[in-house]
């Protein structure tokens, strides 16, 4: 019997599990595969794909304005956690900042790790690409950035990472290469060489793929900013982004080491619900099913993208507990000990397919600590 059973291991699920465990609860996390942090950019947006203030966000999502203090507390708790994980996040949800993406376009985000630096309005930027990395093309990116920042001077250079490979590299592969000191030094030399060739001397902002080291991101960041004498940012885009993988891996390790019991490679296929109260969930293992009992349950299975909701020819279906939902997949009259975190609350919460990192963390926080007016919980009206 667990105190808290979390279903799902995306951002919402992992935060809920870690926080519940941190409160001394016996916690299980049941997951069918990696969560969607893996495909994300690792920066936490307010309203995905568009701009907006915290007040607008609170109106768009089902929050009451008096919850603002709770929202800020949830954010503070998240930031404290990331510091503890050795991968600190910056930013203020009240003041989203512009960051450059892997296409060169600018988007607003609320929370971002140390490897991401907000993009300035002016100055001299250089976009640095790696020849072996098709997902990040510096010329294309620099021109789009130039369009977005007319007052800025934007250049592009391209250097080889110079390691033999038998496959096409991803941003994560490049990040792992940059974990090695000698690769970093070699890259810096090549960048300097290219800058000299192109006669660029005044650059004060360098844009890199989301590849500035995986384990050794801090050293990479330091070595690159010092070596180039400029601010440095990752521009996350095509998955896998190292920005996101670092967060994913650290959260997962934290969950395991703090004693959250992981049920990996399983699927929740239903629940034993009595008088609108869940006693246990049915879990499909490799060869048979078993029941996992708990006092509280957090549904963090995601929306359509995460697999918590499935689009069928007859409409949207909730996949894990087979709850009755409305047309948006929003559970109707959910069990009293079930809390909905992240996109599992229905399609009306998503923008371009996702809820955005800030909603994830706030709803996870709510599912563990509760808010003055339950915002996530069994409700989300």
């Amino acid at each position, binding site marked *: 019997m667990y105190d808290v059973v979390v279903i799902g291991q995306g951002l919402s699920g992992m935060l809920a599990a870690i926080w519940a465990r941190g409160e001394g609860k016996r916690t299980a996390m049941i997951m069918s595969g990696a969560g969607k942090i893996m495909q994300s950019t690792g920066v936490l947006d307010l309203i*995905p794909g*568009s701009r907006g203030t915290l007040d607008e966000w609170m109106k768009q999502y089902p929050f009451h304005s008096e919850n603002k203090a709770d929202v800020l507390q949830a954010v503070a708790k998240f930031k404290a956690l990331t510091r503890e994980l050795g991968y600190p996040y910056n930013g203020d949800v009240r003041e989203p900042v512009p960051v450059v993406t892997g*296409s060169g376009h600018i988007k607003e985000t609320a929370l971002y790790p140390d490897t991401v630096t907000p993009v300035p309005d002016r100055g001299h930027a250089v976009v640095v690409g790696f020849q072996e990395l098709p*997902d990040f093309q510096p010329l294309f*990116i620099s*021109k789009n950035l130039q369009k977005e920042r007319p007052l800025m001077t934007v250049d592009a250079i*391209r250097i080889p990472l110079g390691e033999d490979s038998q496959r096409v590299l991803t941003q994560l592969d490049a990040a792992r290469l940059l974990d090695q000191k000698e690769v970093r030094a070699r890259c810096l030399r090549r960048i300097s060489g290219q800058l000299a060739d192109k006669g660029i001397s005044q650059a004060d902002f360098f844009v890199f793929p989301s590849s500035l080291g995986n384990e050794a991101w801090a050293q990479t960041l330091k070595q690159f900013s010092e070596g180039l004498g400029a601010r440095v940012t990752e521009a996350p885009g095509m998955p896998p982004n190292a920005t996101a993988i670092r967060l994913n891996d650290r959260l997962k390790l934290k969950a395991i080491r703090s004693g959250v019991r992981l049920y990996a490679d399983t699927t929740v296929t239903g629940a034993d619900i009595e008088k609108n109260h869940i006693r246990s969930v049915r879990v499909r293992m490799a060869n048979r099913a078993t029941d996992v009992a708990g006092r509280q349950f957090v549904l963090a299975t995601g929306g*359509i993208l995460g697999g918590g909701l499935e*689009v069928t020819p007859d409409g949207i279906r909730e996949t894990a507990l087979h709850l009755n939902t409305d047309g948006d997949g929003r559970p109707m009259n959910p069990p009293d000990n079930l809390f909905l975190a992240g996109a599992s609350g229905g399609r009306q919460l998503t923008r371009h*397919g996702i809820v955005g990192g800030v909603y994830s963390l706030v709803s996870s926080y709510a599912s563990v600590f509760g808010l003055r007016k339950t915002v996530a919980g069994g409700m989300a009206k």
Partner: protein
Amino acid sequence: MKKALETEVAVIGGGVTGTGILRDLALRGIKAVLVEQGDLGHGTSTRNHGLLHSGCRYAVRDPEAAVESYQENLILKRTIPGSIEQTGGLFVKVPGDDDAYVRRWLDSCGKLGIPVGEIPLEQAFREEPYLTKEAQAVYQVPDGTIDDFTLLIDVAADAVAHGAALLTYHEVTGIMTEQNHVSGIHVRDTRNGEEQDIYAPIVINAAGPWGMNIAKMAGVPLRIINNKGMLVVFSHRFNKRVINRLRMPGDGDIFVPAHDVTIFGTTGKNTDDPNDFSLNREEMEQMLTTGADLIPEIHQMRLIRAYSGSRPLYQKTAGKGSSGRDVTRGMALLDHGERDGLDGLITITGGKLTTFRLMAERTVDLVCKKLGSDAQCTTREAALPSRKSTDSFSGANLAPAARHKLMNWAGVRTPEFETSLKDREAANVVCECEQVTWAEIDAAIPGDGHLDLGDIRRRTRLGMGPCQGTFCNFRTAALAVEHGKAGTREADCALMRGVKERRKGMGVVATGETAKQLQLMQTIYQVSLGFGNEEEKQHV
């Protein structure tokens, strides 16, 4: 000043019919220019099954079309080996299908000389594990599959190699006439608006579903029924051979393997607008329900997209109320001089992908008669080069799957790719689903500043797999800028256009995994890459 050029024959329409005619003309030494409003095959020719008929399907209903198909089947296997896979086909009788029809069918195939052989059920189930276990009889026939994309490219290339000219992205704006004779066509470049006159004593209307528009410009009456069929693409190739239902041809009874996917169709609904490529979920569901009789798991299998195309069916009498299936699928060759008193204009319509060569032969025979030429058709024997190459690309650092694809794709261009692939970056696989390298994509970009992901797709299979370009469309657009093949604005536009087009085809089939794939695509482009703002800005 307006551009002008002079030729003997102007061919309107860059589908298989038009390009087939262009090649036949060129091989007979007749000067010709083909104009196409979009890319080659942007109409019906790339919106079909890709079935190389053995004739069996028409053996009962239309023996003449059946025998034509069978003969062409044999010719094409020999002359266009690069675009044909000799898969063979199966005709399957399931419970409820008419026994009398089976007898008539066997009888007719026998009379027509189409080789048909029954195979043991056990063997059929072993070879085609998805086939319904309810099947009562399975016959093997010489069906095959045609890659209409490579077919068009190769036929057009051969025509150009023999002196013909090709103008894609040119629409016809008018037909020039002098007294009772056509004298040429007015065309407009759809990309830059430039106009041009093409003077030609003979104009061939091979515009397929758009044929009526051409006739109207020329002022001749023509009634073509555009019978729109919907097809769906499964995420993988689940059958080795073509699987047909052994009954009177109807909706939803053919499964055609096409490289790495299976295509299933089709429906038939008449439409007035040749540009109507709309897709209907209900129509698809009905088709799938029928298809389940042959492939019971059909509702659980992943569909990656749907598309539709119109069969241009000629109707002699311009009467209404025809359903489409009962109008002849045979070809119609109209001499508007004889028929309507406008000499030099010829319409060729109807027919099938399998009989495109024969249509070209008959059309050009008529042209020769008009031009007083005695040049003979050679396309029965003249073969296009194969697309296979052996022992190649060993110098390139290529993934075996990408090499495998190139060995079945590069054909005569093998030396060209052997050279370009020496560059490590060119050997990078950009489209993972279909294993398309940058070298292939690079070679498919025209280099005149125009970038169209659809055009690249038809030439390379880029973005045709299960992820529908989620990853490779972005890579391609960005690489095109990096390599100086396109400007940023062009690339961004091409990308948005490409993503929108893929989304359209996915939308109608978007349940289960494809719904997820669509959301993943949307999230990556709109949120991760920040194109969301871009779209907002464009709307403002």
